């Protein structure tokens, strides 16, 4: 059976697919992942900041009820399995993109699924910050906005970069999953050829490229995180 995968004609078709379809699929996966991560950060970062800065009214005076609602929404979105969420947001996707199939359309559910995750990651990064630093900034006359923009975010930058790398690789995985419901990229190829047409070799190729992409993103993220961290001496 395994030998069948490597029969010369299967290998030949797989190689053909590799040449004709993979470049565009890789490109689609990369751009969907990066775009979705970018939008998730645009939405998730401010939410994470609000949760931490608003806690007990320490930095920002946000009503407790608003924070509770925010937390509930984040938890709700985080508990819905991605594929189901994707179907649930079809109306929204249609509204924004005009269609629910295709690569650009998959960005909408990816962002909806990922921004709550990003908000939580941002929250955990900002919580690592020494509270005395915030007190110092307040004692020097910082406004709440200055505390966020000049202290909380820059001081947490290495941790934020590491956590955003985690978000990016997770979104990459989700984007592959979106191939089942019309999303494009490597996930679609793996499902279409490997699951529907039994061309496992093609699926393996797709998986290998996914692994390579995750590795690349992770290494880049780790490199940037250590590079920016000035707490590491003698660098």
């Amino acid at each position, binding site marked *: 059976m395994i030998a069948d995968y490597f029969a010369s004609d299967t290998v030949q078709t797989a190689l053909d697919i590799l040449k004709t379809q993979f470049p565009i699929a890789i490109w689609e996966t990369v751009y969907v992942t990066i775009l979705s991560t970018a939008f998730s950060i645009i939405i998730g970062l401010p939410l994470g900041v609000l949760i931490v800065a608003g806690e007990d009214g320490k930095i920002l005076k946000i009503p407790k009820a608003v924070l509770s609602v925010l937390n509930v929404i984040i938890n709700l979105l985080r508990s819905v399995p991605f594929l189901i969420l994707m179907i649930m947001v079809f109306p929204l996707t249609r509204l924004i993109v005009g269609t629910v199939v295709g690569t650009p359309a998959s960005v909408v559910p990816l962002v909806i699924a990922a921004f709550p995750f990003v908000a939580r990651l941002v929250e955990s990064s900002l919580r690592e910050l*020494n509270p*005395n*630093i915030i*007190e*110092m*900034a*307040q*004692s*020097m*006359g*910082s*406004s709440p906005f*200055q505390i966020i923009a*000049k*202290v909380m975010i*820059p*001081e947490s*930058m*290495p941790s934020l970069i590491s956590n955003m790398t985690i978000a990016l690789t997770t979104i990459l995985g989700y984007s592959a999953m979106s191939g089942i419901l019309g999303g494009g990229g490597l996930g679609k190829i793996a499902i279409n050829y490997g699951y529907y047409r039994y061309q496992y070799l093609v699926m393996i190729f797709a998986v290998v490229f996914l692994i390579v992409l995750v590795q690349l993103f992770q290494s880049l993220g780790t490199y940037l995180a250590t590079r*920016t*961290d*000035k*707490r*590491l*001496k*003698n660098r």
Partner: protein
Amino acid sequence: MIEIQNLTKTFQTSGGTVEALKGISLTVEDGDIFGIIGMSGAGKSTLVRCINMLERPTSGNIIIDGKDMGKLSNKELREERRNITMIFQGFNLLMQRNCLKNVCFPLELAGVKKSEAVKRATELLNIVGLGDKLSSYPAQLSGGQQQRVAIARALATHPKILLCDEATSALDPQTTQSILSLIREIHDKLGITVIVITHQMSVVEQICTKVAILDKGNIAEVGQVSDVFAAPKSDAAKRLVYPEGYESSVSIQEDEKVFRVVFNGAMTTNKPMIAQMAIDLNIAANIKAASTQCIGDKAFGNMILGISGGEEELKKAMEYMGNMPNIHVEEIVK
């Protein structure tokens, strides 16, 4: 001038309400180096945080140069805080900024032009002796150097008041010395008012002109440092001034009278004074506790002596000791 009037602060904790400050009134004159000393939990940190409203007092007022800090709007308070800066036990530098940018931080907050901020920061780092570390990051500096950066940062906005919250408690004795002399030097040069929070008597001794002793949320004693040191009146002050010779730790026999001998720079190091007293008065004293140190040939510290016999002997012994220059005696009544 800083006027603290009837300040109280209570905290609600899961274990009930905690009264951190129970009605503190205190006046700090311009140009003082004012020490606030107390054991941990005495309320020192809460008190200093009330001065710049990092903690809102439960009741009472903080009036700085006629301005009631509690009545300022948020914006006015932020501006006022540029006049009352603070250094901390943990230095609290921004770890992702180099020294120069750390010192620029309060200037950025105040909206000072970048070129001017850099100029001022460079100047200050030179003053604190770190002119060669402008582009070093805090993690590359020692604790003492980090505190110097923090001092430079605190001075950036030309403050009138510098609050030092246990600023030397995380440093070794030698570095403590150098930081204290830097604070003193800055005080003398700029004439700013300095409030020093500490649990170490040696810190107060070294740089403060006045001292308030804080005990369980109350002020136990206030005065000139030299007065409080020579004759501490309150229990809390005695515990701090005589950490090893505190009277309640001394067991006293029934037929024994005890008194304290305080050495305030007495030239006694080459005089066998207790033996001499035994010869001269025929009174044998028992050393119950002692904590003295010699600086040059002068003695500092105190000693608790026990005399067996009656009032008469005690009186004679106290007179004998008390007549020596720079020695102060007091009876300890059990």
